[in-house]
């Protein structure tokens, strides 16, 4: 049930973009209101709800004790899933994650994994035998565009909110619960290209007419840890450079918001 914008709406949106304007009056590189609430889900080890305008995403983390992968016997295991449930959009269907949910989960996952956000060596309980398994679940309730940033921000906040439930598992190395060891704070910035215009944080209608999408995830040292081009259009090389430059300030601001909400000093 793919939604299709009417030709009139499309033309209107294209005209706006041409004039350097956006439907909701924002600047090209301005976020909608970002609301981050951490710790609202009690049964989760950590959680965050992120609202980006009307886009509404819950992220929860759960931890369990299990076996490490054979090739990384000293590391905890991370696994990220995303569910685009049919509650969130008339376009989403019940069933196992499709390619959109899979791409979302994998891009966010790479930001966390390649950005070395979590110190997974600290999640080893017994080398080669027992490690912490960290499940990250992304649950989208309302889809009004730019899930990549909402989910990426939510995952970062949820991780920083996470407490390792060492006391619940009598086989764990430590006796008391302790905060998940965080090494880096990685957040994404997602740009879309409409005709020749690049803009940040597309809301739904803009996303629908976008040619291409570029997500850039940066850590607190402005290092790029993950990128992903999406959609059926293209970028020229210069535009990708421009996005990276813009991303520095943008991510820096987002990172502050996350830290402010989760209030960790040890980062």
């Amino acid at each position, binding site marked *: 049930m793919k939604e299709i914008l009417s030709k009139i709406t499309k033309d209107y949106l294209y005209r706006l973009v041409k004039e350097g304007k956006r439907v909701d009056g924002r600047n090209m590189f301005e976020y909608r209101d970002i609301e981050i609430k951490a710790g609202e*889900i009690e049964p989760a080890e950590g959680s965050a709800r992120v609202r980006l305008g009307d886009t509404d995403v819950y992220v929860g983390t759960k931890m369990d004790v299990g076996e490490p992968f054979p090739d990384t016997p000293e590391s905890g295991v991370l696994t990220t899933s995303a569910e685009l449930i049919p509650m969130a959009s008339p376009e989403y269907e019940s069933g196992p994650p499709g390619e959109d949910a899979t791409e979302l989960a994998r891009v966010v996952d790479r930001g966390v994994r390649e950005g070395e956000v979590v110190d997974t060596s600290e999640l080893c309980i017994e080398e080669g035998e027992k490690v912490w398994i960290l499940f990250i679940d992304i*649950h989208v*309730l309302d*889809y009004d565009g730019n899930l990549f940033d909402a989910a990426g921000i939510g995952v970062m906040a949820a991780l920083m909110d996470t407490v390792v439930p060492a006391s619940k598992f009598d086989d764990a190395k430590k006796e008391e619960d302790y905060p998940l060891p965080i090494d880096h704070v990685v957040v994404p910035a997602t740009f879309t290209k409409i005709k020749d215009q690049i803009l940040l944080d597309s809301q739904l209608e803009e996303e629908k007419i976008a040619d291409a999408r570029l997500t850039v995830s940066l850590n607190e040292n402005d290092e790029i840890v993950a990128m992903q081009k999406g959609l059926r259009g293209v970028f020229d090389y210069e535009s990708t450079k421009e996005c990276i430059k813009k991303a520095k300030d943008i991510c820096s601001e987002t990172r502050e918001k996350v830290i402010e909400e989760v209030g960790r000093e040890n980062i």
Partner: protein
Amino acid sequence: MGSNKDIELIEDGKRMDGREFDELREITIKAGVLKRADGSAYLEWGKNKIMAAVYGPREMHPRHAQETRKAVVRARYNMAAFSVPDRKRPGPDRRSIEISKLVSEALEKVVFTEKYPRSVIDVFIEVLQASAGTRCGGLTAASVALADAGIPMSDLVASCASGKIEGQVVLDLGKNEDNYGQADVPVGYIPRSDDICLLQMDGNLTEEEYEEAMDMAIEACKEIHGIQREALRERYSTELKDENEKDLAEGV
């Protein structure tokens, strides 16, 4: 009803969370909280956090599931992976398949389905945090979401469970009471017609205890019905206010 560990559930004539035997946990409902859905409601009930959303009436797919003379009410109950202490694997399990079926059946009676032949009215219930009684909470929230979507209905379904702990019939079991109690009786109730549209029971009840439990549950449903209507009233007044403000802003 779980294993009979020596868990104390009643002390000095009160339940461990301080409630009277016939007292509900706190319930708050907010209607119209999602943008994309045609109708929605967010409910907190004790520690339960539940979102309900409605899409439709819309064309039924697959076609062969269409009914020629009426709309089908199709509910889907789902628990988020992080909603429970042990992570729930995503996707439907047998429990959620059964609950989805029962909620669909419980809602159909109050919806004027004959107005929308060949259509489906999709009801999605997402449990974000679970703490006993999610099917009743989901059904209660779903009714409000249906009304918020403007679906013509004869009444709102209110739902609540009663049960038995330590030999005592009580209302609205909490988590430990559900795990270590002796009986659970989820009830869906339509106040206007005095009808029962959801009824399950498991555990052990005598005929008399059944009646006591039902009396309690029905009484509570009437109370919940008030909270549901209040949520909708709130919603309409907010909408009105929004429009007034908009008018003001636009200088009308």
